[in-house]
């Protein structure tokens, strides 16, 4: 390798990246260390009285795992998956339709604009809207009764199934457009000769979809799955507002971040710390997969594909 002359300018490299790293160090790294440290201390408020901080080792973790952690982890997973399954199925279907040259869909642009719209809506306001629309005396019940579909109001938010379904529906509506557009980009990146060859060989569209489209975009599907899972782990706004933080009925819609929020609001630093570390480890494992996909050797094209997806998702939280 030839040594380049721009080595002289290396100090400018440090200057350019300094603001990012200083900000990260102050507002993320120090807080992370402090969070981990707090997880080993008993420190909370009982009324106005401050208890602690006393070093208690792993007692907070023991308490956390003995409490409802498993239940809330399962809740979070259930709420995520009932939104994710329809999301990925519909997105695959739409993406393959939009990119199919044999069927020209009129108004494709307009459809794309409409299905992407909910992604930009404030989740808390969206949840508030759903709360009012689906309340016992709300417009949806009024409409259902007018149409004769039910005689008395359906109490959507009083049942586990109703509440979970509404949360799943909102997550589905907010994310399927985004996923559709990402998968479209992935399919459009597939070598068109493959599709042409398949057509010449007499494949029908179902065969093309399962034998060519799906295998070719598998890396992006995996990427979508993992990033969506990380997003699901962070689920908060929708269930929090919809149930007013209670996770009603009977905590069946309480997510992990809602639990964290409760501990933070009540200033139970020890428990909040232990829960944060738990979340950090779970998301760290997921991050590792994303990292591997974006950085490792590229035997099956997964690196390039995941990179595309990551860039496309740059605007995502």
């Amino acid at each position, binding site marked *: 390798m030839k040594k380049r002359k721009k080595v002289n300018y290396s100090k400018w490299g440090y200057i350019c990246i300094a603001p*990012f790293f200083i900000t990260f160090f102050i507002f993320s790294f120090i807080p992370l260390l402090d969070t981990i440290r707090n997880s080993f201390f008993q420190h909370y408020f009982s009324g106005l009285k401050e208890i602690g901080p006393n070093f208690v080792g792993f007692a907070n973790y023991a308490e956390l795992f003995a409490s409802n952690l498993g239940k809330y982890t399962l809740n979070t997973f259930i709420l995520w998956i009932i939104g994710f399954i329809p999301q990925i199925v519909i997105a695959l279907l739409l993406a393959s339709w939009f990119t199919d040259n044999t069927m020209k869909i009129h108004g494709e642009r307009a459809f794309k604009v409409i299905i992407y719209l909910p992604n930009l809506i404030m989740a808390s306001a969206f949840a508030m809207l759903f709360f009012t629309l689906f309340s016992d005396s709300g417009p949806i019940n009024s409409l259902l009764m007018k149409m004769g579909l039910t005689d008395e109001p359906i109490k959507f938010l009083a049942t586990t199934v109703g509440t979970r379904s509404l949360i799943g529906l909102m997550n589905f509506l907010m994310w399927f457009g985004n996923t559709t*557009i990402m998968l479209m980009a992935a399919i459009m990146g597939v070598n068109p000769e493959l599709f042409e060859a398949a057509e010449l060989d007499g494949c029908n569209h179902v065969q093309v979809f399962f034998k060519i489209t799906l295998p070719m975009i598998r890396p992006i599907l995996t990427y979508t799955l993992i990033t969506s899972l990380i997003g699901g782990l962070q689920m908060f706004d929708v269930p929090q507002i919809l149930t007013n933080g209670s996770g009603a009925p009977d905590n069946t819609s309480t997510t992990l971040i809602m639990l964290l929020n409760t501990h933070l609001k009540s200033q139970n630093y020890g428990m909040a710390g232990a829960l944060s570390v738990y979340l950090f480890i779970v998301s760290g494992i997921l991050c590792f997969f994303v990292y591997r996909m974006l950085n490792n050797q590229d035997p099956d094209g997964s690196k390039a594909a995941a990179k595309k997806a990551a860039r496309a998702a740059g605007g995502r939280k």
Partner: protein
Amino acid sequence: MRQHKSPKLRTVLAYVVLVILSFMCLFFFYILIINSTRSHIDLQKGFSAVPGDYFMQNLKNVLNDGTIPIVHGILNSLIVSAGSAALCTYFSALTAYGLYAYDFRLRGPAFIFIMAILVMPTQVTALGFLRLITKMGMYDTLLPLIIPSIASPAVFYFMYSYLQSSLPIALVEAARIDGSPEMHTFNTIVLPLMKPAIAVQAIFTFVGSWNNYFVPALVIQTKKKMTLPILIATLRGADYMNFDMGKIYMMITIAIVPIIIIYLLLSKYIIAGVMLGGVKE
């Protein structure tokens, strides 16, 4: 054409599915806007598909409600979102440029580090973050909602990819030969070149910040400093049954509709932005 019937049938099916999905996406917002034009008494009567004539009155009621300072909310949200978008895009572009255009010893590790934290949730550090900003005297101010956006790994990565595909290093070297100082090169040559990427990410950061609820709700305590999502959340916490429903719908409208309007105006660029990463190599 082979299989003459099948494609036709599929097309019909596609339209049916698309129309149903579009209906689902728009229906709820349609009721929202209709209901924001109806009075509380009218709303009690149930569902209606036609608008009422109470829009201005509802708007007035919301603006004059002292318990929920919505005007402050809008201003605070604007300040936080615009500030975050500006800082985030500028410094992400700068960081990307630093790692792309310069060779230095820590270049590789720095890049790997950012990739490792690319999708790390911010919630896991919230506890330490709150304690830190309290010590720094920034608790209950808007600053901690703006400054951390300087370090946005995902936006950095988008910018970096964009630079890879559109900034020839020769251009930087040419500017250098012409005697342009390094930062001047970035600000006057590189930044303008990155306009499309910056515009797309500015929109996304703005919207993300506008909608952000978790951290702001933990940081802000004073009513007049609250951003819109926190004010919306207080609606849910309030004695909901005694509330003027017209006002509730109007407040949700105020929180959502500006974003819908911006989106419809810029949808071409936003959709292209989401695609951009996908098709460009």
